[in-house]
């Protein structure tokens, strides 16, 4: 179906299911229970999962396939956000014109930055993209303040033109009347599920983005990109000019980032310069590596992982720790709180850092490799006794889509 092999179709359907069922899957604990802190099924975080998933999928098209490590993708994220907010200011709160503009402007930016940066490879390429992104950040932060509203961030004011704004138009982002912020909450025996319009809008776009990247991975174009990663010099010797391919990959992934940035502003009508800072560029690199660079599912997992830590672990404070460990004897309670203090609340970075180290050391292929190992282990146990000699078996190459 959809021009995919059977295995890929199943894979896509699984992704669709997971994405659409997210509001239920992320709410494993009933309201009011101690575990409710770990629930992640509220609109803002789910939207972030989808948006950063798109960002990471796009980044992976460049980094995972061609091996070019860009440290400046946040610039496109910011450009996308600014485009959408400007469309709000000029037209009205409908997200569609903004998102289209976001994709177009980020493509133009990517073309310009890519054209220059891709003249170099390896570390020089990374540094060039980093420099461009920092330049964009500084421009947005102070120099271009009339356009970006500087540090404060671009917002919609009541005296903006908004020429398409009618009498009864919604006063927050919407898709032809479907207001992004609206959601319906369903309470089932203590479990509270929030189905948010904005999330489903992001989710549908994320699935489309995923499908597109799946097609790119399987296409001759994708094959060419992999060839560049394997050995660009050899490819050049065969008489092929590889730069148009890398530039195309760079622009495509820039457009993904622009779309993600646009969606951020579509969910929350504000565009800030921090979105372009190098830390934001570094974050997507971490997401991709943590999840598994070059795999389809990896970047999405990585994005979800990091956003979960940032939003859930950072909110655990001493008060909650006291509640959790309150039943223990005093000395033990204090000791446990003292230890956990280093891993939650403001120290969430440390937990994330440790996990990142563990993943990089023990699972160089990222979380996806972890999943594959478990799957292989389970399969191996099942196969035992089937008569096959496990020692003399050609190792199946991991399917790139796993």
């Amino acid at each position, binding site marked *: *179906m959809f021009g995919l092999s059977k295995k890929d*179709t199943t894979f896509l359907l699984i992704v669709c299911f997971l994405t*659409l069922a997210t509001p239920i899957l992320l709410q494993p604990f009933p309201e009011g229970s101690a575990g409710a802190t770990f*629930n992640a099924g*509220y*609109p*803002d*975080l789910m939207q*972030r999962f989808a948006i950063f998933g798109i960002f990471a999928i796009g980044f992976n098209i460049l980094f995972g396939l061609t091996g070019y490590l860009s440290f400046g993708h946040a610039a496109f994220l910011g450009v996308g956000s600014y485009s959408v907010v400007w469309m709000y200011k000029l037209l009205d709160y409908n997200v569609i014109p903004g998102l289209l503009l976001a994709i177009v402007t980020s493509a133009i930016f990517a073309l310009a930055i890519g054209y220059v940066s891709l003249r170099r490879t390896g570390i020089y390429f990374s540094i060039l993209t980093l420099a461009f992104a920092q330049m964009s950040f*500084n421009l947005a*932060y*102070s120099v271009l*303040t009339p356009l970006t509203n*500087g*540090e*404060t*961030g671009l*917002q919609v*004011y*009541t*005296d903006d033109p908004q020429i398409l704004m009618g009498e009864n138009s919604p006063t*927050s982002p919407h898709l032809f*009347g*479907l*207001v992004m*912020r*609206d*959601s*319906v*909450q369903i309470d089932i025996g203590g479990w509270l599920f*929030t*189905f948010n*319009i904005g999330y*489903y809008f992001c989710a*549908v776009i994320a699935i489309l983005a995923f499908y597109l990247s799946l097609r790119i991975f399987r296409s001759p174009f994708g094959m060419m990109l992999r060839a560049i990663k394997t050995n660009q010099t050899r490819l050049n010797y065969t008489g092929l000019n590889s730069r148009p391919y890398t530039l195309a990959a760079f622009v495509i992934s820039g457009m993904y980032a622009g779309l993600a940035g646009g969606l*951020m502003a579509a969910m*929350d*009508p*504000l565009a*800030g310069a*921090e*979105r372009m*800072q190098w830390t934001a560029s570094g974050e997507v690199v971490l997401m991709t590596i943590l999840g598994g660079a070059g795999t389809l599912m990896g970047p999405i997992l990585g994005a979800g992982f990091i956003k979960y830590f*940032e*939003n859930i672990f*950072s*909110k655990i*404070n001493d*008060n909650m720790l006291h509640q959790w460990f309150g039943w223990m004897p005093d000395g033990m309670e204090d000791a446990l709180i003292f230890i956990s203090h280093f891993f939650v*609340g*403001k120290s*969430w*970075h440390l937990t994330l850092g440790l996990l990142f180290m563990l993943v990089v050391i023990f699972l160089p292929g990222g979380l996806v490799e972890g999943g594959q190992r478990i799957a292989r282990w389970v399969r191996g146990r099942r196969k035992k006794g089937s008569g096959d000699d496990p020692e003399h078996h050609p190792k199946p190459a991991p399917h790139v889509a796993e």
Partner: protein
Amino acid sequence: MSKTNLTRRGVLRTGAATGAGLALPTIFTSAASAFTNAPGDSEVTLGFNVPQTGPYADEGADELRAYELAVEHLNGGGDGGMLSTFSSKALDGTGILGREVKYVTGDTQTKSDAARASAKSMIEKDGAIMITGGSSSGVAIAVQGLCQEAGVIFMAGLTHSNDTTGKDKKANGFRHFFNAYMSGAALAPVLAQRYGKDRKAYHLTADYTWGWTQEESIVSATEALGWETVNTVKTPLAATDFSSYIAPVLNSGADVLVLNHYGGNMVNSLTNAVQFGLREKQVNGKNFEIVVPLYSRLMARGAGENVKGILGSTNWHWSLQDEGSQAFVRSFGTKYGFPPSQAAHTCYVQTLLYADAVTRAGSFNPCAVAEALEGYEFDGLGNGPTLYRAADHQCFKDVLVVQGKENPQSEFDLLEVVEVTPAEQVTYEPDHPMFDGGNLGECNPGA
């Protein structure tokens, strides 16, 4: 064969999704309540959104301490702090409207995006009825906008930019902290009196919104008194070495250097300026002087010896002798072992003011609370008689002019109050050009 099968399924799925999507808003409107996150009968949740990591983590940690203290006092714990000195006696230590006060915390990272994400999770997940905190104007403005959209009250923490209650003011947002204009208005007369009316000033300004409004305010206040502004130079926010900006000051003919910097920026620029020997210089037959318009104790500690004798302004200082300040310093000191910073003070006061407004209004509805706060006059919270002006939701109160102490007694005793500028002197019209542009809009109760 299988192809048609799957396509049909796909069509069905899309159809169902579209149908559900179209049906959603109708379900939603039918389940609407009076306002966002109406609390239950036993508990009410407040959201404390402070920088726990990043450049202002110190301020954030102190803010959080103050919030915990405020919650303790509201729930009837501790010694009650400022509850006993507050001019309004509506609060009696039984929580807010009989509901026990609970709180959730979040990390703003001093980034608008992170701050908004954190505030959103408090509103969407934890059911917070009010958001407060923050240690930078960019964050305050971003979160204020979010609270306006979501329909909860925002009680700003440390934010000094004119814009927070100027062009970015919002009906659901309230600021107790003073602003750049007030700094200028309070500082200028003291500067004129100390250093004379015939001075040439050189400004180094952090290149972002707060820096600009700060510079604009000081320039206009000092020029009104006869000073001349030789030059204003913008420095990048990320700069850590200001030597290259200090050197031109020496040849500019200026005899006063104004550092419109905050936090680590100010610590570094002041240290550089002192290392260059500016303070020993004689220019135009006068001693060269340095001014830091916005001071905080945490910054003074960072700059160490260099702050001695340098003038600036602050919102509040723990050495104030009024009853309210003393009560607050006492309970804060008892609990944590050191005196509170001005950030802690403003956050503590904001929490009390919110709780008091809810109690007086008899409702958690943001619109009722806003109405109770607007035009409210109170006393006993450390800054003397104070007015929450209805036109822009800015507090008007006395402003302190301080200078670095020559002989500090302890690591907290770094600033001394030179003058308490009365509120009238720092009051401005709501349509003052520096604050013009935005409008409050309508109060939004959400849902």
